[in-house]
């Protein structure tokens, strides 16, 4: 295993960057989709609510690999995309449904008194959303969003099956030519693990930084690991 790790790192590093680029782009787009759908869900229009509901139900009710394949071939009937962009759009649409629920939850978790106070000061709904509700909601969304980003990073491996040579695609190809699949797959797994650990660390740091600004909310206060049940 270590020989693979040592000998083929330039190839895997390149694939890692592709994975990161793909993940980043699809998650950024996913945040846009998610925000839109979240607004649909909390809007007063029955039609928009229904659209959002159906979208979320279908995406959360079917496997990602099926979505990727459908979107890869389905999107093409409308517009021709490279496999990078087809994969990125598929992941964005997938992650968008989950991110929508995160945003909706965090927006609705903001005390309704905030919206009332903003309105009582003469702010319009969009202005109050933009200046008062969303900044607070985004902060609250960071932990679950970080978690979703990690899931999105791992899930990006499935675009290997529409021909992307990102980390997993590269691993598959490599294993098929060196006939040492177990070792190769372990190396790929290690790359993902390191990426996830780095990302987890960054998200935790960010959370802590945001929390020190305002007063820290303490949790119940037992150390969970030392709890005796």
């Amino acid at each position, binding site marked *: 295993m270590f020989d693979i790790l040592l000998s083929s790192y330039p190839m895997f590093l390149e694939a890692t960057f592709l994975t990161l680029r793909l993940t980043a782009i699809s998650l950024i787009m996913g945040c846009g989709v998610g925000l839109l759908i979240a607004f649909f869900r909390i809007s007063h229009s029955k039609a928009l609510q229904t659209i959002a509901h159906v979208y979320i139900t279908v995406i959360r009710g079917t496997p990602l690999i099926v979505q990727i394949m459908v979107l890869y*071939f389905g999107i*093409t009937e409308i517009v*021709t*995309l*490279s*496999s990078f962009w*087809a994969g990125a759009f598929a992941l964005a649409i997938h992650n968008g449904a989950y991110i929508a629920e995160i945003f909706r939850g965090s927006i609705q978790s903001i005390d309704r008194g905030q919206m009332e106070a903003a309105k009582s000061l003469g702010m319009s709904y969009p202005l109050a959303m933009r200046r008062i509700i969303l900044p607070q909601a985004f902060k609250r969304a960071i932990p679950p969003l970080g978690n979703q980003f990690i899931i999105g990073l791992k899930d990006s491996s499935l675009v290997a*099956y*529409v*021909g992307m*040579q990102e980390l997993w*695609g590269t691993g*598959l*190809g490599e*294993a*098929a*030519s060196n*006939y040492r*699949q177990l070792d190769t797959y372990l190396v790929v797994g290690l790359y993902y693990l390191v990426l996830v650990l780095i990302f987890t660390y960054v998200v935790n740091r960010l959370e802590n930084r945001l929390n020190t600004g305002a007063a820290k909310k303490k949790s119940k206060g037992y150390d969970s690991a030392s709890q005796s049940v």
Partner: protein
Amino acid sequence: GTSQSTGETAGEQGAKDPNKKDFTYAMSGVYKPFNFKENGELMGFDVEIGQALAEKMGMNPVPITNPFETIIQGLQAKKYDTVIGSLTITPEREKAVAFSNVYYRSGAQIFVAAGNDSIKSADDLKGKRIGVQKSSSYEQQALKLTDKSNITTYDSDVTALMDLPTGRLDAVITDQMVGFRYMKEVPDKIKDVGEPLSHDNQGIALRKDDKELLEKVNKALDEIIKDGTYQKISEKWFGRNILGSE
């Protein structure tokens, strides 16, 4: 054989004779017309060759599907005992597995979208986007014609062919029989270009230490070729004998 086929991996091919040993042979199942599924039933040239060989050897034929990119790994991991899956015999692969005698010969062919007039031969493929089955011998051939970043790999040659009309690919390299079948069933989508890139020998793959079975397979293969069984199967699927000669 050590594979405990549960019947989950392959459609049950008739009643099994409990007194006979299983002859397990793998294929991708997405390589029409050599091996594919229709209404859940695995069929095609490779499937029937396996059945004929098993009969000659007095064994139970158990065809199994496995993704092509890990088909040799599965063999080494003893998930099945042979691969009858249109594996081209290459020096690379010969390092990993033992091959039987050639069981058919075919050509690697370039296919392009029906409306594409800019690609007329292999020389036009430089810098073009080529689609191939992941870890196939065609992937190696494509690498000689264009650079790695322009190659897209698929789970199935058929999927690659279907990505031609979308414009995502400029060309696909695969077995000519696979492309011709697609052209016949779905007219006016793709076309073949130029002469075959190579004439390849296809072999049945076995584990290197499985010498006894290799001998039996080679003997049975000889027999079905001699007694006309092979001829019949080949005629059924291709209208001609694809054994060819060197």
